[in-house]
């Protein structure tokens, strides 16, 4: 390799189901690339050190902090952001958030939605304690925590019964 001359890297990845190609400096995080290069500002930037969870996305189906992933690392991989999980009128989970008063200032909510969807994909019927454990990397300063737990519980119950 010729180090020092190839600091830009071209990334081709599946973003929300669509193939996308973009070129970024080597240090550019996935978070910044989503927001700046791809205009996907639903993923929020806050602590930029993996502590707050506002930038949570799914990478190949796994929840990750997009501030701690280099954009270059997702070349050839699949990324799902809040824009990719949303539907017109809101998903059942997003509607449950509203019904239970979980959305206050809202800044952390896209990250909360992603962590909750990830949890439900792994554990379709989580207990309150399991939700608290699984989502404790997503800070909410409005402290809607119990509101969100209720919303996730309700969504789980509905989804399980629909499937059942």
């Amino acid at each position: 390799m010729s180090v020092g001359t190839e600091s830009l890297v071209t990334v081709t990845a599946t973003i929300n189901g669509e193939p996308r190609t973009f070129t970024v400096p080597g240090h550019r995080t996935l978070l910044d690339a989503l927001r700046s290069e791809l205009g996907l500002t639903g993923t929020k930037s806050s602590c930029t050190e993996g502590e707050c969870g506002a930038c949570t996305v799914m990478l190949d189906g796994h929840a990750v902090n997009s501030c701690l992933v280099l954009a270059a690392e997702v070349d050839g991989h699949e990324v799902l952001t809040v824009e990719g999980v949303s539907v017109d009128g809101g998903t059942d989970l997003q509607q449950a958030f509203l019904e239970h008063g979980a959305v206050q200032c809202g800044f952390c909510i896209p990250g909360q939605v992603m962590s909750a969807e990830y949890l439900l994909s792994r554990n379709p019927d989580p207990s309150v304690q399991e939700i608290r454990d699984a989502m404790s990397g997503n800070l909410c300063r409005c402290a809607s925590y119990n509101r969100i737990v209720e919303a996730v519980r309700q969504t789980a119950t509905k989804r399980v019964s629909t499937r059942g």
Partner: protein
Amino acid sequence: MVTYYKAHAVADALEVLGRTDVEAKALLGGTDLLVGLGDRLDSAPGVVVDLKGLADGEPLAVTESGVRIGLTVTMADLLADPTVSTWYPALAQAAGEVGSVAIRNRATLVGNICNASPACDTAPALLVHGAQVRIASAAGERVVPISEFFVGPRATTCARDELVTAVELPRPVPGTGSAFQRLTRRWGVDLATVSVAAAVHGDGRIQLGLGAVAPTPLLVDVPAGTDLTDRAALDPVLDEVLAVATPISDIRAGADYRAAMVRELAARTLRAALDSTRRTQA
């Protein structure tokens, strides 16, 4: 500027990491390396060598004699593996305490030990499980006991032209139990103020692994035969064996509190390890 380089094999990674004309850093989960990378580009590495695509990288492998944990194995992988949680409860418990779900989906065991934080969550467990660290270089491969791997805060015996390729854990002798506990400032995701792993081995040895109470994680032996159920008898024994701990005062805790807590957690963790041997025997 940082150059991103995706290595395709161990030898390829070693070649780039070993170059002297550029500052190269190995990238696994990135949960330590990438913290604030964009904010400190002046001190950032020149090349980030991504090791997640090595054709000859090892997976998580279970054999009759133990478990081999390759360099890309994440905390989430460890938690999902039934053998790891059966044979190495302390490691499974420690891996479950590393960061959040999203962090555990990225953070690797090898990355965790190579970062070599004195408060590294998995190190105390690896110490009591008798882990061996496989280190590759252009010259070949060497194996280092985990107790010799850490040489200081953020420093290991792995040189810049070397690469940790796996951590190996021997299969515990029958009747072994282990446990991990740590003290944090809040109940949610946090760094350890003090952490302790304990193993009560089936052959009678009793060991403690200690985190955040010295420049490196420590391994200490508790005299075989010590009654772990009698706190009054245990405390003076612990005072003696824990004298090697040299905790500091920092923003997370005072030195005296750390010293007291390492004893408290040691007593509790030993008891939990003992209880886990009884569970496995039952």
